[in-house]
């Protein structure tokens, strides 16, 4: 019998549960936080307490915990006891995962849903289908923090080359759907730079070139995308590449649109220009140029200061105090 059909029948009314002593919720006298139950939840919770008290681990416990989880997915004791029962019964875990697929999609933002899967996949040792499930659930909620960190955990835990190899295409697809998905950019960095060196990627210079090409292309399409600029900085910082190497690329983004862009000419693949529809100057580009000038020092500090002033007073006024801090810091460098 499907769970749905039983929803209106209380456990108290079912003869096959008559041997269980339900335990009512402890109620303090004049509690600060009194509880008012709906009958259905109260009934399930009472029987859950009865089962736990008796230490029972049987198929009907799975039925009961599923019911509680469907009404209250954050009830961590129910999850915990369900897992213990699954282990005790040696239940088929792929069946469990399939059941959980439906619940996970409904309750995506609940920690417990993902932790339960983590425990199960640690037992099944079959991560491939999990990655497929994660990809599917990310379609519904593309930036779900639990989902992405679960994916990162699976990749690191199983550390399977085949799984890692499939990640870059996966991330590229996510970014193609939404260039501004910070979770996807973060995952790209994780996969490319923080997961060791895999076969085919031994030429680190080539990897850096490829990544720079990718992020520059992305910035040219959407110059005001904070995630892409953070990714660019991440590549440079991680690999010790000077920001000044990117000066030719970044400069056109730090000023208003010019006639140069619209002129026909040879397309410079190394330095893609900002898309015509984009809003310029891009604040992140101005910041980047200022960082280049600051690093150069000497006379360039004046140029950096001018850019920070333009941010403080015109382009990024909400962070005025931060830009004034940068100006002060640079001045101090000059005087010391």
């Amino acid at each position, binding site marked *: 019998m499907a769970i749905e059909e039983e929803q209106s029948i209380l456990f108290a009314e079912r003869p096959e549960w008559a041997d269980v002593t339900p335990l009512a919720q402890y109620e303090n006298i004049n509690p600060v936080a009194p509880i*008012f139950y709906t009958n259905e939840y109260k009934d399930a919770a009472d029987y859950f307490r009865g089962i736990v008290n008796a230490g029972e681990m049987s198929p009907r416990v799975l039925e009961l915990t599923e019911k509680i989880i469907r009404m209250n997915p954050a009830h961590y004791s129910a999850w915990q006891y369900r897992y213990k029962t699954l282990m005790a019964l040696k239940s088929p875990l792929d069946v469990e995962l399939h059941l959980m697929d439906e619940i996970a999609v409904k309750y995506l933002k609940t920690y417990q849903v993902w932790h339960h899967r983590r425990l199960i996949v640690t037992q099944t040792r079959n991560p491939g289908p999990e990655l497929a499930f994660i990809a599917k659930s990310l379609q519904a909620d593309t930036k779900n923090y639990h989902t992405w*960190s679960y994916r990162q955990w699976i990749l690191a835990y199983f550390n399977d080359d085949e799984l890692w190899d499939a990640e870059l295409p996966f991330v590229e697809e996510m970014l193609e759907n939404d260039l501004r998905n910070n979770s996807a950019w973060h995952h790209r960095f994780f996969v490319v730079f923080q997961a060791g060196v895999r076969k085919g990627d031994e030429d680190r210079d080539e990897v850096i070139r490829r990544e720079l090409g990718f992020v520059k292309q992305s910035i040219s399409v959407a110059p005001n995308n904070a995630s892409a600029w953070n990714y660019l900085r991440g590549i440079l910082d991680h690999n010790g590449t000077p920001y000044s190497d990117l000066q030719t690329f970044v400069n056109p983004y730090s000023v208003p649109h010019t006639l140069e862009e619209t002129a026909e000419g040879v397309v410079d693949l190394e330095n893609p220009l900002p898309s015509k529809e984009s809003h310029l100057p891009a604040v992140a580009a101005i910041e980047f140029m200022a960082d280049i000038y600051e690093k150069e020092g000497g006379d360039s500090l004046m140029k950096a200061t001018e850019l920070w002033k333009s941010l403080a007073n015109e382009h990024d006024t909400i962070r005025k105090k931060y830009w004034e801090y940068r100006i002060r810091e640079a001045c101090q460098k000059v005087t010391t």
Partner: protein
Amino acid sequence: MAESQLLIPLHVSYIKSLGESKDELAYHTTAHLRMNAIYWGLTALCIMGHKDALDREEMIDFVMSCWDDEAGAFGAHPDHDAHILSTLSAIQILITHDALDRVDVDRVAKFILSLQQPSGVFAGDPWGEIDTRFSYIAVNALSLLGRLSELDVEKTVAYFRQCRNFDGGFGATAGAESHSTQVFVCVAALAILDRLDEVDSDALGWWLCERQLPNGGLNGRPEKLEDVCYSFWVLSSLSILNKITWIDAEKLTKFILSAQDPEQGGIADRPGDMVDVFHTQFGVAALSLLGYPGLVDLDPVYCMPADIIERMGLRKGWKALDRRSV
């Protein structure tokens, strides 16, 4: 019409009314949050200067009724299994009410320490969910209990280091995306452990002040929506890094005030949404750090009244905005 003032009497009565919720099922299905909710409500009342609006004895009795004698720690509700989340809230409530003597400190410290994993991170309970939130909670609780010396600091710090990302931020687990809430728990824990050397203060300070959106509100990560609770996570992190001035205080204040419910009281995640005690607490906490007039000082590291933390000798080198007189 946008509110220009913090409606303290309304929020006080909203918090008082939480025990008499009309929406029965929703109230019940948040039983696993009950201890946390009481801590949020109590702390908000303290910051608004109305600590006595909820009965002290009743609250202490409720906390003690959540003691899980098998585990030696506190659950979220009577008969709930002990969890690190509810254990910290219980300790914070009891300390706020000067009733820590009711706690078996030895057993609680033992429970907390038993949750540390080989990697250095803490689990929430024996079920094993891990998260840097739980590491912060462990550090915070042990510190409040005076048992920080029993912690393996190097091991704990090593995991925070693994959670530090290329943008200077921190995630929930190793490899996870930087997120304002996780930044707060890592930075605050490192502050308690006197290990802020693990933080790239300039890079992270910039990442944090980039959370402010044109409407004045703060978000949790790039390209996401603003939410009142991030006001606290971000502001407290910045105050610990001594960079709270990097946020436009006036705009953020206006944003938080506009998320109030001027009829029922309480604060929501953003203007027009349903209020709840979580966002009420973190909205008020953020306003306190912003120097909003008439509020009590809050310690951003422990998220408790500052004078209590100071009396316990636990104050760290954070800096909030000066309290305005108007």
